[in-house]
Structure formats: structure tokens, C-alpha cells
């Protein structure tokens, strides 16, 4: 490098500064003897000791020596580099020398503060400085890279988390691409009837936000769309989006729904996903009345025109003036450029069939919590009536907590929201049917604002609580279709077998079934349970280990709506902070492949958790994307031919340090 040849034209000139740190170091380590010793080392032009090297006069000393003595390498022996390495690198840079021509030696936290034997501590100081002096000779000039941030943001998932994050960022003036794979946004929250603990109507609080998303000029809303590929790195992502055909031209449809009435199917026959398959719809349908976009969709699996090509197409007839129906619509893809990504892909409920002894799918009157939500909802398949499959109104209902949660056989974790929604369902069922309600629980987890009070309220309303895990559910012989729910009531120390008409299983929350595929696509990781992994559980709950990708909502872990909205705001804030600065600076301790000597053995390729290493087919060699590289050095150590090196931690630099440490062994 021309610069380094120039700077070293008079040979290596090292300046070493030994700090007293008051008496913190000097009280145990003989700093004067250390300085005298260091001055004798090859390559050392100047060795000084000073009371506080980090102070302004201390820093000035270094800068002056660099200018007056032509120093081209600096070593400071003082406190921990974790504390002041950046400080001194800046000092060196201010003096016009590349800041990475610097090495720090820890003779405080690792020496004077932990040893009492002064002679030994001083000897240790000599070894450590000698190692640094040998190492710093080999340092190369490095540059911190600045990566600019594209202000557009991609938000994946149109549930409450995605919606809130989108509105926050759009209101801040940033362009948002909101991508949702279903035909409407709203997510799980749109399916709820009332939300705990306030019993707000879910649709009432959600739909205004959904409408705001549609009409916001900064939001590009794409439904029936999925992200298929993510390339690039923080600030510069190229994302490929696949738009699945709706068979309806979105801009042309006004949501009048006359096509649904006109459909050749006089009766709705197709099991309806939004109503948890309890209701029916036609092949042409709108997911729910307040869907956004307010546009119908055609399901090609059940539509006669797609199945046989011979339909009368009455739907097209009634839409003659708008001409919104297009059976020839194709899947399209497009690529967008964004700087940050927020993942808000939500959760999936545990499949109740995984707990077979609860009888879901076997006995008709066993329901999941979400199914009951739909029954209770006025716009649901039973118009808000809680009616069993055989048409009867239940007189006694069992609500079973912890289905698929806190269970070694399914998921060990607690799904956090089920106690609250079980209480909510208890209240709503009672309200609608005046049935006797039994909640079977292990612990009652009601930690949020108003939650404990809600529990008390539901208890006051006469709901029965049985503290015991339900062991078995089976038909009560000779009881006309009633089911027996068996559980040990641990507070009474007896086994109870309670005959009920209806069982509601409070199923837990799980990651989406394709979470692993999705996380790989976005270059992030998952925890052992399969939820997307946050950078730090306490201090960075919305960041991931991949710069520029953030998490919001249940995709990161089970949580209720208030926490989801809070997290979505946090994710938006993190993204906005990045966009606001406009760039990020990367530490230069990245790895690089020595292309001329790489043999293409591929040993390094799968080792990078950030997928920074790729195999370049036409060269048959490995290549590292320095922006993705985080500088761990794993690939460097694994390379069997020494063809990968890490800036600032090169093999030769570390060997020099080892040899320096032991030189007088």
C-alpha cells in the first residue's frame, strides 16, 4: 500500500506510553522500570510514562511526539481497551496517523488491579508491552467503511404490529412498503371479538388503523404478496416480492360485492378460513367485511371457471362497467430497494390435535379459543351466537388453559396471553349463553395493567376456577353427548370429573410454520423455540444480529396487543434512528479472502452466521462481503490453507503477540 510504504520509509518508529493512572497502575506496577525496559526494545523510538495518558495533556503528548519524532506506531499501556481504545485511536487519527497503527495494553484491569506481588506485576507488564510492540509493527492502515442508508423501509406482515410500525414510519415521512401474504391486512387481531382487559371491540380499534394504512400516501400496501429473496446489507437491501394473483384488478374493484351475490354458487359451500372453517364462503369472496383493501378475491381451488373453464361467469356480467374481474391475472414479481426491514410476521396457534387426549377433531364439541372467538363475533359464522355444532346452546362450558404450552410434549414455554384470553372467553361465553363456565388452569398469569382486576371481575361473575391441569376429556357415558373433563383440583386435593357441553381449548402461540425458511431468507436466526431471535433479550429486544433487520410483535415471542404495539413502535424507532443518521460505520476488523491463493475448498462457506461468505462460481473461489462480515474470525481459523485473513487480527499479528509474550521464557 502506497500509504504504508510512505509512512514506514524511515523504518518502524514506535512510541510507547505507559500510564500511571494516578496510583491505580503506578501503585503496583513500577512504571518507571517498565518505561526504561520498553525503551530498549527494537523499533521503539520513544517510551514515556505519564500520570494520566487519557487526559488532554496526555493526549497532546502523543500527538506532539507523532509530529516531532515521526512516530508511525503507537502503543499505550494503561487501562482496558474496552474503555479507551477508541479514545486513543481518535488521538492518533487527529495527529494524522492512521488510527489502526495503534495497540493498547491492559496493565490495569488485568495487572495492577489484580496482583499484589509488585515484581511479578511489573514483569507481567513487560511481557504484555513487549508483545504489543512486536504486534503493532505488523499493523496495517485500515479504513472504517461508511455505508449509506436508503430511507425506504420494508415491513413484512400486516397484522397490528406491522400496521403500527408502518403508520409510525409513514408519519415520520419515510416511504413504507407493507407486504402481507393474505388477501387483507389485520392479522389475528381482526379475528378477535373483544380484546382484554378492556373488552374493546377489536375491529373497532383496528379498522381505523387499517384504513389509515390504505390511504396513507407514504405507504405502498401489497397484499397477497410475499418476499421471496433478500439481497444486500443494511442500508442497501434489494428485496424481491412476489405478487400472487387475486384475479381481481385492485384499482378497479370498488368493493360493492355484487359479484359475490351473483356467483353461480347460490349457497356458500367453501369452508371459510377467516371463520376458522366453521362457516362457509363462496369461491369469490371478501375475507371479512372490513377487509383492507376492500377488494374481493377469487379462490382458484374452488372456482368453477378455473376448474372446468365452463362457468357462466355471472360475476363478470355484474361487473361489466368496472371490468374488475380478470381470470387471466398472473403472478408477478418486482424488486424494491430499501434500507431497513421490520419483520412482523406474527404467530400461529398450536394445533390442538397435538394434545389428542383433549379430543379436538374427535369430539365435535371441542373447540379452540380462536374458533370460539369467531362464534362470539357478531360477524362470525353463527352471527354471534355461541351454538354447538349440533345447534344446541351449551349450558356448561369448560375452558382448558395451557394447551400446547408449559408442556414438555409440545412447547415448554408459557404463551403469555392464554390466561387472559381464557378469562375473556369465560366472560363473553357467560354473557352470551348464561352457561356455567369452568376454567381449568395451572397458574393464573395476569400481570398487565388491569389484568388482575379483570380476573377478579370474571371470578365475581361466577366463573368457576379449578386449579389443575386437565388430564383427559372423553364422552360421559349415557349423558347425551356431554364430555367429561377430568382434572385433579390441587387446591381441594381431589380429582374432579365435570360433565360439560362444550370444551374450549386455550391453545398456545407458536412461530409460523415457515419461520425457519423466513429467517433464512432475511439472514437472521431463531431461538430454540423457533421465534426470531433478538439481539439481546433485555437491552436489544427489537434488533436482530443482522444490522438493519428489526422485529416487532409475536414473531419474536408470544405477547399481547399492548406489548406488540409497543414493540412495533420500538422497531420503527430503531429503523428511524438509522435512517436519520443516514449512514453506519463499520469496524474494519473484517475478514477477507486472499483471492490468488484461495483453493475453493469451501470450508469457510457454511461457517458464517451472517452468510457473508459466498462461493463465486466463475472464479471457483470464496468471497467475503465486508459489509456483512462482523469480524468474528471463525472462517480465518478454519481455513486450511491460510487463505482468509482478518484485518487487525491477522495470523502474523497474533503469532507476533504470542512470541513477544514468551520471548524470555
Amino acid at each position, binding site marked *: 500500500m502506497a500509504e504504508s510504504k510512505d509512512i514506514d520509509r524511515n523504518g518502524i518508529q514506535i512510541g510507547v506510553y505507559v500510564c500511571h493512572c494516578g496510583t491505580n497502575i503506578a501503585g503496583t506496577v513500577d512504571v518507571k522500570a517498565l518505561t526504561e525496559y520498553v525503551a530498549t526494545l527494537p523499533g521503539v523510538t520513544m517510551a514515556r510514562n505519564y500520570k494520566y495518558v487519557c487526559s488532554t495533556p496526555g493526549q497532546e503528548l502523543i500527538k506532539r511526539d507523532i509530529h516531532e519524532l515521526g512516530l508511525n506506531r503507537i502503543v499505550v499501556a494503561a487501562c482496558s481497551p474496552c474503555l479507551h481504545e477508541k479514545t486513543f485511536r481518535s488521538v492518533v487519527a487527529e495527529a494524522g496517523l492512521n488510527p489502526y497503527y495503534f495497540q493498547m495494553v491492559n496493565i490495569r484491569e488485568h495487572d495492577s488491579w489484580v496482583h499484589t506481588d509488585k515484581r511479578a506485576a511489573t514483569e507481567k507488564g513487560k511481557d504484555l508491552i513487549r508483545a504489543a510492540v512486536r504486534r503493532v509493527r505488523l499493523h496495517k492502515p485500515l479504513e472504517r467503511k461508511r455505508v449509506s442508508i436508503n430511507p425506504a423501509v420494508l415491513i413484512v406482515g400486516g397484522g397490528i404490529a406491522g400496521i403500527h410500525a408502518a403508520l409510525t414510519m409513514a408519519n415520520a415521512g419515510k416511504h413504507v412498503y407493507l407486504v402481507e401474504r393474505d388477501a387483507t391486512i389485520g392479522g389475528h387481531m381482526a379475528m378477535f371479538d373483544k380484546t382484554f382487559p378492556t373488552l374493546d371491540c377489536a375491529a373497532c380499534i383496528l379498522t381505523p388503523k387499517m384504513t389509515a394504512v390504505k390511504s396513507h400516501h407514504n405507504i405502498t400496501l401489497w397484499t397477497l404478496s410475499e418476499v421471496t429473496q433478500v439481497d444486500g446489507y443494511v442500508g442497501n437491501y434489494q428485496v424481491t416480492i412476489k405478487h400472487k394473483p387475486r384475479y381481481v384488478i385492485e384499482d378497479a374493484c370498488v368493493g360493492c360485492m355484487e359479484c359475490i351475490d351473483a356467483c353461480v354458487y347460490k349457497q356458500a359451500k367453501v369452508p371459510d378460513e377467516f371463520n376458522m372453517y366453521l362457516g362457509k364462503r363462496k369461491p369469490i369472496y371478501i375475507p371479512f367485511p372490513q377487509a383492507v383493501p376492500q377488494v374481493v378475491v377469487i379462490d382458484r381451488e374452488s372456482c368453477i371457471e378455473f376448474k372446468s373453464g365452463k362457468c357462466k361467469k355471472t360475476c363478470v356480467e355484474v361487473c361489466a362497467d368496472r371490468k374488475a374481474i380478470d381470470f387471466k391475472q398472473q403472478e408477478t414479481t418486482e424488486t424494491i430497494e430499501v434500507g431497513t426491514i421490520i419483520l412482523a410476521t406474527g404467530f400461529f396457534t398450536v394445533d390442538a390435535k397435538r394434545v389428542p387426549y383433549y379430543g379436538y377433531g374427535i369430539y365435535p364439541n371441542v373447540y379452540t379459543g380462536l374458533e370460539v372467538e369467531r362464534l362470539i363475533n357478531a360477524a362470525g359464522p353463527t352471527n354471534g351466537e355461541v351454538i354447538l355444532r349440533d345447534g344446541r346452546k351449551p349450558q356448561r362450558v369448560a375452558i382448558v388453559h395451557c394447551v400446547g404450552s408449559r408442556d414438555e410434549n409440545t412447547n415448554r414455554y408459557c404463551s403469555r396471553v392464554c390466561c387472559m384470553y381464557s378469562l375473556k372467553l369465560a366472560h363473553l361465553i357467560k354473557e352470551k349463553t348464561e352457561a356455567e363456565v369452568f376454567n381449568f388452569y395451572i397458574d393464573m398469569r395476569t400481570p398487565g395493567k388491569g389484568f388482575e382486576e379483570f380476573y377478579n371481575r370474571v371470578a365475581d361473575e361466577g366463573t368457576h376456577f379449578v386449579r389443575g391441569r386437565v388430564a383427559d376429556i372423553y364422552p360421559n357415558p349415557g349423558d347425551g353427548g356431554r364430555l367429561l373433563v377430568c382434572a385433579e383440583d390441587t387446591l381441594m386435593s381431589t380429582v374432579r370429573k365435570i360433565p360439560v357441553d362444550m370444551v374450549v381449548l386455550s391453545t398456545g402461540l407458536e412461530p409460523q410454520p415457515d419461520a425457519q425458511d423466513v429467517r433464512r431468507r432475511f439472514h437472521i436466526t431463531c431461538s430454540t423455540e423457533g421465534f426470531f431471535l433478538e439481539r439481546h433479550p433485555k437491552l436489544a429486544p427489537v434488533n436482530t444480529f443482522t444490522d438493519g433487520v428489526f422485529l416487532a410483535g409475536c414473531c419474536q415471542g408470544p405477547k399481547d396487543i399492548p406489548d406488540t404495539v409497543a414493540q412495533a413502535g420500538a422497531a420503527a424507532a430503531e429503523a428511524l434512528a438509522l435512517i436519520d443518521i443516514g449512514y453506519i460505520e463499520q469496524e474494519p476488523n473484517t475478514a477477507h479472502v*486472499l483471492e490468488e491463493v*484461495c*483453493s475453493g475448498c469451501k*470450508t469457510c462457506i457454511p461457517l458464517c452466521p451472517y452468510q457473508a461468505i459466498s462461493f463465486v462460481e466463475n472464479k471457483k473461489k470464496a468471497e467475503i462481503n465486508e459489509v456483512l462480515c462482523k469480524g468474528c474470525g471463525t472462517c480465518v481459523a478454519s481455513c486450511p*490453507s491460510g487463505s482468509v485473513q482478518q484485518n487487525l487480527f491477522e495470523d502474523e499479528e497474533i503469532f507476533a503477540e504470542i512470541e513477544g509474550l514468551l520471548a524470555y521464557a
Partner: protein
Amino acid sequence: MTREKPKIAFYWCASCGGCEEAVVDLAEEILDVVATADIVFWPVALDFKRRDVEQMLDGSILATFLNGAIRTSEQEEMAKLLRRKSKLLVAFGSCSHLGGIPGLANLFTRESILQAVYFETPTTENPDCVLPGVPGKDGNGKLTLPYFSERVRALDQVVEVDYYLPGCPPLPRIITRAVATLLGEHLPEKGSVLAPDEALCTECPRKDSKPEKIALKSFKRPQEILIDETQCLLAQGLLCMGPATRAGCEAPCVLGNMPCTGCCGPPGRVRDQGAKALSAIASLVDSQDEQEIDAVLASIPDPVGTFYRYSLPASLLAHSRKV
């Protein structure tokens, strides 16, 4: 007056003779060599004596190709003698380059080796437990044998070496290329290994079949599986040293459906071939649990023999501590 042909010499130390075979294997090309150079010392083939070498002028041999490791005092003396008499001293073959397979003797003490060889092997009849090396007599006077040293050393651990010809033995094409280079105008940097500086994967015929990720629950020895002739050997669980071994041989072992054993030593940036090889192999283990990792690694029965087959004396830890 015709210009004198440059002088070259060959010598063998602790070796199997394979490197001498390699020179003979040059077949017709040996005549080209003879045409261009004068072989002035080659114990296996020509009748020159040590005294003849001693009488040569220092530096008068253009290049000496010395194969075999250094184990006895005689080999050490000859190495030093030839060093004095040669302009260029070339370490020929794995044994002189890195210590070679004989280098694995550094896992044992000198005593235990002598004992095994002279007392304990099944076909030895030595009731008086006589060890060679004790000064004896023969018709003309005293007879002493060279001292069998504590451990095996590579050539550059005894004398300064100019170039290295890697391989066990070096392939004919490597030899002819090297000889041509050394007899030519532009000599490579002193201390170079006369072979490409990349690892073998670059030349391997099965390179394209190697997947980007190999995750193994066990390693296999060649006799344990039917080795697929087209697929990367590492991917089949065999301990192929190719990624940690210098190229230049064009992978004849792989072409013979056997994994590379590392005879050409490591590429230039590596200080210890065995260490780097084991690092790469360890990264293929498909487990994150310590006990399971150990169980997978148990399918490598002899790590030192595998990873340091040719290079133990040249490694960072050159010998067993008990030696």
C-alpha cells in the same frame, strides 16, 4: 572450449528410496537432464565416493537434491558437507522437506525404538541384546557406526535449504519443472517451495462435486465404505487432506479414488499443516454438544498419524514430549 556443464548431485538420508525412484521415473527425460547437467554424486546409481565430494571446491555443485530425513550423525554430516559444496541445496521430497513419514518416529523415544527393532520384533533373534553403535573391531581397525539421534529432523533443521520439492515422492512433472527452473536464468525467491501456493482442491478433479456444506456424524476410513468415484472424498466422510495440502501434484491419489494424505505439505501461509488440517476437519462435525462432538471425533482413530503424517518434525510441536 565448450562451457562446462553445471554439476548436480543427489543424495539420500533417512528415506525409503522412493525419491530416487522418482528421479529414475523421469525415464527418457533423465537423458535430457544428463545432457544439460553433470551428475557428480548419486550413491544409488553412480560410483562416486564421499571423498570425491570432499575434494570438490566449495560451491562447485550447482544444485544438490537431497532426499530423506536426518536421523543419524552420518546423514547430518553429509547434509553439512553437501551444503558446503553446493550453490543450491534442494530438499527433495517430504522427508527432507518436512521430516516425512519417518518423522512419526518422533512420537517414540530413541530407546524404545531401538528396543523394539533389535529386541522385541517377532522375527528378531538377539538373545544377548546387542545394540548397534557400540564401537567394535573389524579387520582394519576400529569400527564405529553413525549415532542414531534422539529424533528425526527435516533438512532445514540441520542446514540452510534453498528450495523445496514437495511430495512423497515428488511427481516427475514437478521434478522436471523444478530442474528446468533451477538451471534457468531467474531463480525463485530463496526458501520457496517449487510448487503452486494454493491448496490441492484447486486442482482436484472432484472439485465441482463438493457441496458448500458438509456436516458429518462420523468419519470413515477408506476400507469402511465403497468410495464413490465421482464425489468429493471429504463429502463422503473420508479424511482427505487436500484442503490443507499444497497443489502441484494434480491429485493422483484422488484420481486413484483415495483421499489425499498431505504429502506435499502445507501452502506457504501455514506454519503447521496438521493444525490447519484438523481445524478444517473439526468444522465438518455436525454437532454442538461436547459429548456428541467427541463421539464423532472418535471415528478418527489416529489424529497425529492423519494430520501430521508427513510433517511432524516440521510442525510447531515437533515431537512427543516423552522424546
